[in-house]
């Protein structure tokens, strides 16, 4: 298989699996009486298993415990890669927030323009 395609599929499967794992962990961390986590946990687990299978088929290894760990590791590398993009977008948003100026309030301007209003 083309190495670029293999790398892309690994990143896709890894990030899908790791994001689903994070979703399950977040559900555990925020468990409360109003939660109905059974179906979301089932869905996230299905994504993890399907991603592991896809990764194992792509790399040519059996879909077992080692494949699951390798898929999760690929997910860590892939998510660390896209953190830089998120930080780039955040930097632009911080720049906008830092240079923010209070907009002119038309009502306050009207109040100030009227004589005898101090």
């Amino acid at each position, binding site marked *: 298989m083309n190495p670029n395609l293999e790398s892309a599929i690994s990143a896709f499967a890894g990030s899908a699996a790791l994001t*689903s794992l994070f979703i399950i*962990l977040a559900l555990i961390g925020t468990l409360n009486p109003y939660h109905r986590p059974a*179906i979301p946990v089932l869905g996230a687990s299905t994504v993890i298993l399907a991603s592991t299978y896809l990764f194992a088929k792509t790399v040519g290894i059996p879909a077992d415990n080692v494949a699951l*760990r390798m898929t999760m590791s690929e997910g860590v590398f*892939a998510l660390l890669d896209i953190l830089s993009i998120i930080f780039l977008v955040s930097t632009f948003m911080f720049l906008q927030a*830092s240079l923010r100026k209070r907009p002119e309030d038309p009502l306050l301007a009207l109040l100030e323009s009227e004589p005898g209003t101090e």
Partner: protein
Amino acid sequence: MSPWAAQVWLGMAIAVIGISMHRTGPAFRRHLFGAPVALLGLTVMLFRVEEPPQPELEVVAAAIEAAMWLLPALAGSTLVLMGAPLYWRTRLLPLLVGWALIVVAWYQYYSTMSVVLSDTIRWVSALLGAVLAFAVFALCVRTAERMTPQEPETEGLSEKERKYVESVLRRHLEVADEP
């Protein structure tokens, strides 16, 4: 799986659980434990007696390498948000220190990470993978919500509750009327 490999994943799991404790809603009381639990998770993940096997060894190495720019990035972002005029009040010192840390983070990123054009395909694939995971989660949440039986209509306020609401409204309206 060796215990050292399990330690890496256990640490990561504890860290993610700790981070997710920082939220509002019914589990809000747990937010005090969020930071200590997250730090415990990172400690379990990064400090070990023996080296973990592959691929966990690479995961730990990548996490430590990323921390070189992620830590100043996180600290800088927090300070910028504290100092920026989000509510029309600028706090100059946190703002300037925050921007200095963000510049340091970007410098660290370009000095430690090697970015090549072919990485773009990996980035897009990783984003699509994360989007797929969130989409499946959203669909599952919608399904779970639809399967939840409707609760009966809420009863009206009792006399005691009505008086309490009236007193709160009156108090606030009176305050608003003051010059």
